[in-house]
């Protein structure tokens, strides 16, 4: 029942996967919800994120552990974050939220 050691990673890999899941997953979650805020009703997206945010974050943590290479998944999460950040940047200029 203790997991078969052959599937456990080296210490650096562990650090990579844990940090990728926790930090990388966090960045992906918030940038994702922010992108949605610019293109859907922002109030509804924000209040929905109070539960979808945590569920998505945990989902991304799990995926990070399933990855074969912790640094690769870090890279993927960073790329996604950058992509979403770029969308946010351009959305702010060309499709901003119209506050009442």
């Amino acid at each position, binding site marked *: 029942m203790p997991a*078969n050691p052959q599937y456990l990673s080296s210490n650096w890999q562990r650090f990579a996967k844990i940090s990728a899941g926790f930090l990388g997953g966090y960045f992906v979650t*918030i940038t994702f919800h922010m992108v949605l805020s610019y293109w859907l009703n*922002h109030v509804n997206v924000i209040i929905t994120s*109070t539960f979808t945010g*945590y569920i998505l974050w945990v989902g991304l943590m799990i995926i990070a552990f*399933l990855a074969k290479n912790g640094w690769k998944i870090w890279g993927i999460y960073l790329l996604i974050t950058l992509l979403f950040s770029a969308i946010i940047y351009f959305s702010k200029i060309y499709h901003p939220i119209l506050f009442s």
Partner: protein
Amino acid sequence: MKNRIYNVLFHTHTVSGIVISVVLYIIFFAGSFSFFRDEIIGWENNQSVEITNQIQLNFNAALDTLNATYDLHGRDIDISKNHMEQQVRVSISASKDTLATEEAKTSHFLYLDTKDYSEKTYLESYSLGEFLYRLHFLAQIPYPFGYYLAGFIALFFLFAIITGVLVHWKKIVTNFFLFRPLKKLKTLWTDAHTALGMLGLPFQFIYAVTGAFFMIKLVLVAPTVMVLYDGDQAKFYEDLEYSRPTFEPEHNTLTSKIDINYYVEQTKNLWDDFNVTEVHLVNYGDTNMHVLVNGSLDFKTKFTGTGAAIYKVSSNSLVSKKDPIKNTSYLDGVKNTLYRLHFGDYGGYALKIISFALGLISCFVIISGVMIWLVARDKKNIPEKKRRFNKRVAIVYFAISLSMYPITALSFIAVKIFQPEGQLFIYSFYFIGWLLLAIFFTIKKSLYFTNKYTLLSGSILGFLIPIVNGVVTKNWIWKSLYNGDFQVFFIDAFWITLAVITLWITFKLKRKTD
């Protein structure tokens, strides 16, 4: 599922589970008792109140009393009912009157008894009920560490739940009714853990998500405010309808009479089954005085029925209203649902009792998880040193977690005998007592002993609680039932029931090879 994926999920489930286990147990144990926070407080004060969300207060009389003490002119006064208690929360702002004295320019916060208008500070009205409620989000650990610890534990609990379900996926249906207590030890704990884990899954999922939201919502809010709102926090709160309309004082004295009871009655007449939960008085005594009445429909009538009415006092007119029947939005729905699901207060006592039971079941899921971890590593191929270490970990975990039962029961007795005491007494009694018990059970070095004697001592103390209550207050359980003092009766009956169940479990415990 591929072998590698299964092993990864299994390992992460084990590690996340073991790491959060003790703190999560504390949260779930204290949290289960928190469903009855208001009943515990009623029992402590030997008071029973009507179970309703409606503020039951003669506002005019209360304000007369407050005016005599504080000179309310030019101030904003917020009165709210957050619990089923014989008191309401009152917040009085500094006076905005330009001619106000220095004394009038101070704000005040107090609890007001709804029957005799006596005042108490937060510390003066502190109780065991409030203590257990705050313990369940670790508030006694200095802010912000306690709050954030509780929040992240909830987040990792969500991780543990999801990985646990994925690990168990293929056997969910086949093993749903499987319980083999007579096979080997590891099988007993595994069957118990998976069966109760599956049963409690919806409950635990809801609490993991809502729990995380309540405590660490800042991690979602901060980037949103920074990026979407360019730092404009006020606009953020306004958009999410957490702010109220403001009114500037005109600095002229209002000549007409102020009758708050009238506005509350008017609001209740607007909609059937409407409970007024908050009353906000803006610019008291000024010509631009307004009264904001907030509340919601009874949960039986409509789950999300938040409504409000705003009145201008000088013209006695309704300025605006939010219809709780027709105008509830998705925003209202989500905000309300997060609270209702977590507090479990929309289904009367039946829901609270079921929620309490599921909370204790979750505690058992945690304990059984620790046991699986321990027993699975009690194999010949694990070095003796590691096995001793694992055993010590389990002994300490058990000592800390299971001691909560007797110390909680003993604290009920203590607050009844030594009342009225305050926060310092409750903190000292509970924490020092808990520490002593945990040290005692750690030294005894036996899981069986800890299990049996925490349950046994808790049961005995539980039986003593209604007896001590009867002796001290003379409000014996048959009297409180007969007189309709429901909150007092409930706690006495609750402890008798709980003690019977845990005593029965104690007798059923047979020593297995420890």
